[in-house]
């Protein structure tokens, strides 16, 4: 029995140490943005929403322009994870450091996160995906994150760096895209993306639960500071599709936010995107400046 327990413990211990060490050393050196954001410390202020915000709103610019008391962290994820529902609200609360009432929350509203496939209307599929599925965030190495069905395409993200990554996450959580895009590549990306979204357009319906949970999220965050909703600029093709899907989306957002809605869809012609969905890195600072100015105006600073 002694030999059995000894070997079993040895196997378990070596396995745990090796995995832990590996994750600790390598899991943050590349671009698994989700992991890096999950293990970050708690913050008082946040940028929330989809990848449009994750790539397109720079926390440092906001801090500089708004003279913020607390650091603001970009805790935005992909559109299928950052969906307004009970599990995402819980994930946000777990990351929230309750400072005082001077925090700032910028919530980017991606129209597509309010639409679901009819087969998914009775469930919240995002609850099985990180950050929503993580019970113990803010810890590194985080075994829970990797044991939740870590999918194969992400494996390369935890293999030692070759220095040729196309993106990284900066210290305040923004995903910085370093890849260069020429006009041919952009056209091609937009074409592919529009095909995907056209399919999506035909298969989704309005999900009222998402609006309700966005309101709940705003109500919760309002206890700690000011909350603003933002609609990011996209490519014209995407905007046309979105307007067709939800022509009254802006009015709804304005109502939910009690008028604190910064609508940048009118800038869709001004800023070029990499794929119809995300603005290019070179425009991030100026778009963030516009958001900061709007916040300043609304707060009458």
């Amino acid at each position, binding site marked *: *029995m002694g030999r*059995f327990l000894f070997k079993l413990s040895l196997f378990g211990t070596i396995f745990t140490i090796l995995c832990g060490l590996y994750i600790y050393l390598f899991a943050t050196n590349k671009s698994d943005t989700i992991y890096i954001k999950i293990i970050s410390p708690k913050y008082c202020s946040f940028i929330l929403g989809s990848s449009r915000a994750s790539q397109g709103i720079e926390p440092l610019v906001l801090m500089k322009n708004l003279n913020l008391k607390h650091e603001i962290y970009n805790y935005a994820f992909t559109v299928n994870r950052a969906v307004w529902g009970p599990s995402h609200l819980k994930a946000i609360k777990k990351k929230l450091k309750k400072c005082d009432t001077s925090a700032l929350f910028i919530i980017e509203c991606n129209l597509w996160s309010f639409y679901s496939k009819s*087969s998914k209307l009775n469930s919240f599929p995002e609850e099985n995906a990180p950050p929503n599925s993580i019970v113990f965030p803010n810890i590194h190495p985080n075994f829970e994150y*990797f*044991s939740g*069905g870590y*999918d*194969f395409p992400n494996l390369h993200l935890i293999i030692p760096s070759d220095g040729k990554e196309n993106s990284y996450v900066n210290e305040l959580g923004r995903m910085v895209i370093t890849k260069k895009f020429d006009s041919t590549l952009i056209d091609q990306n937009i074409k592919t993306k529009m095909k995907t979204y056209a399919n999506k357009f035909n298969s989704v319906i309005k999900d009222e639960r998402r609006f309700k949970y966005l309101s709940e999220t705003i109500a919760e965050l309002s206890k700690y500071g000011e909350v603003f909703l933002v609609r990011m600029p996209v490519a014209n093709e995407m905007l046309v599709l979105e307007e067709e899907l939800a022509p009254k989306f802006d009015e709804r957002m304005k109502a939910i936010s009690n008028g604190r809605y910064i609508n940048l869809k009118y800038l869709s012609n001004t800023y070029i995107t990499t794929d119809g969905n995300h603005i290019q890195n070179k425009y991030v600072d100026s778009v963030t400046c516009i958001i900061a100015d709007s916040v300043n105006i609304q707060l009458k600073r």
Partner: protein
Amino acid sequence: MLFNSFEFALFLPLSFLLYWFVFKKHLKAQNFFLLAISYLFYGWWDWRFLSLIAFSSLVDFIAGQQIEKSNTKARKKLFLWISICTNLGFLGFFKYFNFFTESFADMLNMVGMQTNPWSLNVILPVGISFYTFQTMSYTIDVYREQMKAEKDPIAFFAYVSFFPQLVAGPIERAVNLLPQFKIKREFSYEQGADGMRLILWGLFKKVVIADNCAIFVNEVFANYQTASGLELILGAVFFAFQIYGDFSGYSDIAIGTAKLFGFDLMTNFRTPYFSRDMAEFWRRWHISLSTWFRDYVYIPLGGSRVGKGRAVFNTFVIFVVSGFWHGANWTFIVWGALNAVYFLPLLLMGKNRKNTDTVAENRVLPNLRELWQMGSTFGLTCLAWVFFRSESVGDAWSYILQLFTLNHDFNVDLPYSIYLTLPIFIFLEWCFREKGIFRLKTINRINRYTIYFSIALCIFLLGRFNNQEFIYFQF
């Protein structure tokens, strides 16, 4: 409590340590402890059904003793029927009542008599089909005088409720398992290590293979009307791997867990997808159920040593009943009947025992003929699985018709981990086809531990621990 749950990860080591360090001195203490933890394990789902399993055990315990004591054949038969009727009564009520009333009402509606079926809102007790069959085998064996009636109620109750195989088998025979409760168990390093190997391999099959395949399969079967032919073919193929990984994974964990407590359970799967014909497949798939039906239904009906017509009838009965055992739905009956259709030509041509050895024995690779035989058997199996997986026979039929469309679009998300793990799984299964996971004992230590670490790493990184239930729990 699921084998792939956090609760079980605590329950197993705690039970193991208490069993070997606190209750190891006396046989009675060992059996009593096993009974207590088995009831705790089962009660974790729904404690109310503990009364059902306790009542079933009590009836069979008394019936076994009365059968042995009885002097006349008629009296023996009476107690045998009390046992069978009690067990089949529970099974019939909880599992088949609604099916029979609804089917009867449908039949009346077809002849123009409009009726509203009277259905009950009953919950199916987990594992009822498994433990009722296990406990029935005891009374039948006592009746046939193949074993003595058990006098120790604790040993008997522990045998019926033995937690590793209680909810999804293997369906043990009393002649094999009950005597093991009569001998004080001593810990053996070899047995413990074999148990851990099986648990590791079983977990890999369940959380990596089955649960990753399930994501794709659920998507395809839920939206089969709009899926392309290629997606539907892959849906059926992945379901074949899902159900195999799920069920054989459960069996491996069950057998491995039993070994940790000093018990040897029967093998339930022997790499069935490397079968060269359907008869071989059925000798390798869910062995404990097929042999149960063979011993307690097929042979008493006369088996194949009767006229051809009767042999065909017997075969059909056995497959249809086996299908019906899986669930109260026509899909399972059609699945059983389809397998009978696959099997019958072999029986009629006397070729049903042609492939009793292992494919490519003592060779690394199969020859072309064997490859073709395995491929065609697998193809037929996948076709039958469509009925097994579908909600209704109509759905299954539409699925199969749609399967032959020439549309080869591919729009369903396939978990990428499958691309990596499925080929490795098939390769390892091929290597294990003769000795199972125990083949690893014959290779050198470095390679062996590399494989253990790799399997553990796959479970950790790619396994899905969202408490996905085992498919066979519903049966």
